[in-house]
């Protein structure tokens, strides 16, 4: 109940401060960005170590009664988090990932708002969307840990909608009992068993509990995971658990960074989004190969015919080039002849992982002369007092919004394209 009251008050506060000279747009922006900054521990530590921060504390007018300075500050704080590693790696682009979500009683805790369970499911839905957006030729499956058991809620498949529907259904499921890491890992191992050697085998666990009730010796399970080259990543929601650390270290060739514990809500989402980017191919885990793929063509029909994937009557679809059966959606594996069917555009979607765009560098304030009131190269808006970012290659200058957009969504530098 406190939360909704907060929201109301902060709205109210912004409304009244808006009375100055700031326009509606600034206000709406503030409201959008404020929660994010609020969630981030100001001391950079854990959320509970921070002073209590109310959303209205953040919004303060400057001397002129304007919110512009605050807004740009907030946007900038967000920007700090998107500087990514741009060294090109060989990455395992064709992924097979099992997402394991804790659904034990601890997930009812309200230290993450509204509670751990709701937030975890909400974030998982976003993760699935983003995962398939960036890894279109990959497969995903979802398992929950509840009542000491591992339950498969969504079969391994390449269709984001099925996973999202499954996640929405477990949103209503009440967390219960204790989790069992071993059961979940064994089930995930079973799902990943048949995966071809050129695909990655990954398990991503969202673990809220501090204990695991296992039926047998979990170390044996870890050994078999190592043998099968399954890499496990764990996102802890409460505190470090030794067994998780051990699992991650052993299955990631001694790399401990695969185990991370969240600091707050924002950090939780960041960690999940980090898992969207395909892992670099480890030296040990190398098996490169050619994969046979079909590039079907699309047809539209006057009269409906049955599709081979759902046995439903549809108008048109894609025709498998090797067996000529009709399929509803791509990418998929042909149900008749087992060949992987994709559009060439799906491959293109993964290219930016292989050739990342260089980060822009911030233009130092001293380099901006007082008279120079330039505009952002791509969106034509005036820079004003906000900071600007320059591309190293084409030396064009961009505003922060464009910088974020170019690096997070577009993956093209508008300036470099124009030379």
């Amino acid at each position, binding site marked *: *109940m406190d*939360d*909704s009251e907060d*929201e109301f008050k902060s709205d109210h506060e912004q409304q009244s401060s808006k009375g100055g000279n700031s326009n509606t*747009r600034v206000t*709406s922006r503030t409201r*959008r960005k404020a929660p994010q900054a609020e969630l981030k521990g100001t001391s950079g530590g854990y959320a509970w170590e921070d002073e209590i921060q109310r959303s209205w504390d953040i919004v303060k007018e400057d001397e002129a009664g304007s919110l512009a300075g605050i807004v740009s500050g907030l946007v900038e704080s967000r920007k700090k988090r998107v500087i990514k590693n741009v060294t*090109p*790696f*060989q990455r*395992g*682009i064709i992924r097979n990932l099992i997402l394991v979500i804790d659904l034990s009683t601890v997930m009812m805790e309200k230290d993450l*708002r*509204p509670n751990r369970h*709701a937030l975890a499911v*909400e974030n998982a839905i976003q993760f699935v969307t983003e995962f398939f957006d960036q890894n279109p030729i990959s497969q995903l499956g979802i398992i929950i840990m509840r009542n000491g058991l591992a339950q498969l809620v969504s079969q391994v498949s390449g269709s984001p909608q099925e996973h999202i529907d499954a996640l929405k259904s477990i949103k209503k499921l009440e967390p219960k009992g204790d989790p069992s890491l071993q059961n979940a890992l064994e089930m995930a191992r079973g799902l990943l068993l048949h995966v071809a*050697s*050129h695909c990655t085998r990954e398990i991503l666990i969202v673990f809220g509990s501090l204990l695991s009730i296992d039926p047998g010796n979990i170390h044996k399970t870890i050994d078999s995971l190592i043998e099968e080259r399954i890499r496990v990543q764990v996102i802890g929601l409460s505190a470090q658990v030794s067994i998780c650390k051990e699992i991650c270290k052993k299955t990631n060739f001694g790399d401990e960074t695969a185990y991370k514990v969240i600091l707050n809500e924002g950090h939780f989402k960041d960690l999940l989004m980090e898992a969207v980017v395909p892992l670099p*191919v480890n030296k040990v885990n190398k*098996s*490169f*190969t*050619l*994969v*046979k*793929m*079909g*590039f079907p*063509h*699309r*047809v*539209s029909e006057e009269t409906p015919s049955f599709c081979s994937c759902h046995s439903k009557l549809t108008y048109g679809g894609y025709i498998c*080039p*090797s067996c000529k059966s009709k399929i509803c959606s791509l990418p998929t594996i042909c149900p008749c002849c087992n*060949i992987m069917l994709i559009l*060439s*555009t799906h*491959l*293109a*979607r*993964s*290219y*930016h992982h*292989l*050739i990342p765009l260089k980060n822009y560098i911030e233009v130092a304030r001293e380099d901006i002369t007082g008279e120079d009131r330039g*505009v952002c190269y*791509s*969106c*034509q*808006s005036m820079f004003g007092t906000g900071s600007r970012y320059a591309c190293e290659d084409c030396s064009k200058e961009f505003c922060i*919004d*464009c910088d974020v*957009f*170019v690096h997070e*969504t*577009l993956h*093209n530098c508008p300036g470099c*394209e*124009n*030379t």
Partner: protein
Amino acid sequence: MDAIADKTFKTDANSSTSHNYDSPSLLTVIIDTNPVIWEQLEPTLSFKAMLESLTVSINSHLALNNANEVAVIANHYEGAQFLYPCHVSREDEENQQVNFVKTDMYRQFRIIDDSFLSQAFKLFKDDTPPTTQPKNFLSASLSLALAYINKKQSHLKSRILIMNVTPDTHLQYIPIMNSIFAAEKNHIPIDVAQLSPHYNSTFLQQASDATHGVYLQIKTHTALIQYMMTVFFIDLSIRDSVIIPGIKEIDFRAACYVTGDIVDVGFVCSVCLCILSDVSLVGKERRCPVCDVQFDVNVLRKLADRKFAALIGSGANGESGAVKKRKLINGQSNGTGTTATSATASPMPL
């Protein structure tokens, strides 16, 4: 309790506005200003006639809603640039005597029309026609348009209209694709008016298909304005209820990176995702011609025909060190050769 709290945390700003049929929209037009092609089209459609039709359409878009906005970008042979909005220096503004539209026109129309027409006029006035084959800056135009829309999208629905005349050649595959994906992700439909009656653009067909836009090849140039008003200026909110022309079949087949052949079943490198038309293209050393990684011999043997399987089989067993590296990398490696570690001919690890 949770249900109440849940609502507070809904951050999806779009969900509330998507059903508001009166919400303003932003129209971004990308005009292809390649002078060479326009000259070829001259007998049936002049650049001026196209601008006239476009101006009428833009005005009608502005008339639909007081808060509607437009942006115009020129895909010129020297680079993409904004025609409107455009920051003109004070001097330029004073020097400009030519009025492109009647001064007694509705003010809102006049300002925008005048600005973008004068910029377009400047493009052609300043430049001497190119002597070499002009480059196509479509990816730059799209990038600029998308970044502009991204900045505006918080309060406007947007769409892109491309008036295209130039053929696909010389287009960079990856940047174009990146732009298309960005548009798809931000739910920005890309409409394409292909004004040249002679060829279709595969890239733009894919662009409009992926983003649920309209692709239309306009062959009857005298009716250009009719096409614009009935097909391209249908508001986003009523697009679902209107039957708009579509393309029946799009070629989604892929081209082999080495031979350039169009294939419908190909072999894809699991590291760099390059497409090869035949397994034998990896050569005796089983290296990817683009990124140079070495492939697993067992998998290749399964994929390859008997002749080639025998070849790589013998390569793996005998002849160590002295195997000469066969250069397969040619000019078509399309820039995907990211991690190409220069491979020295080493004995096969088997």
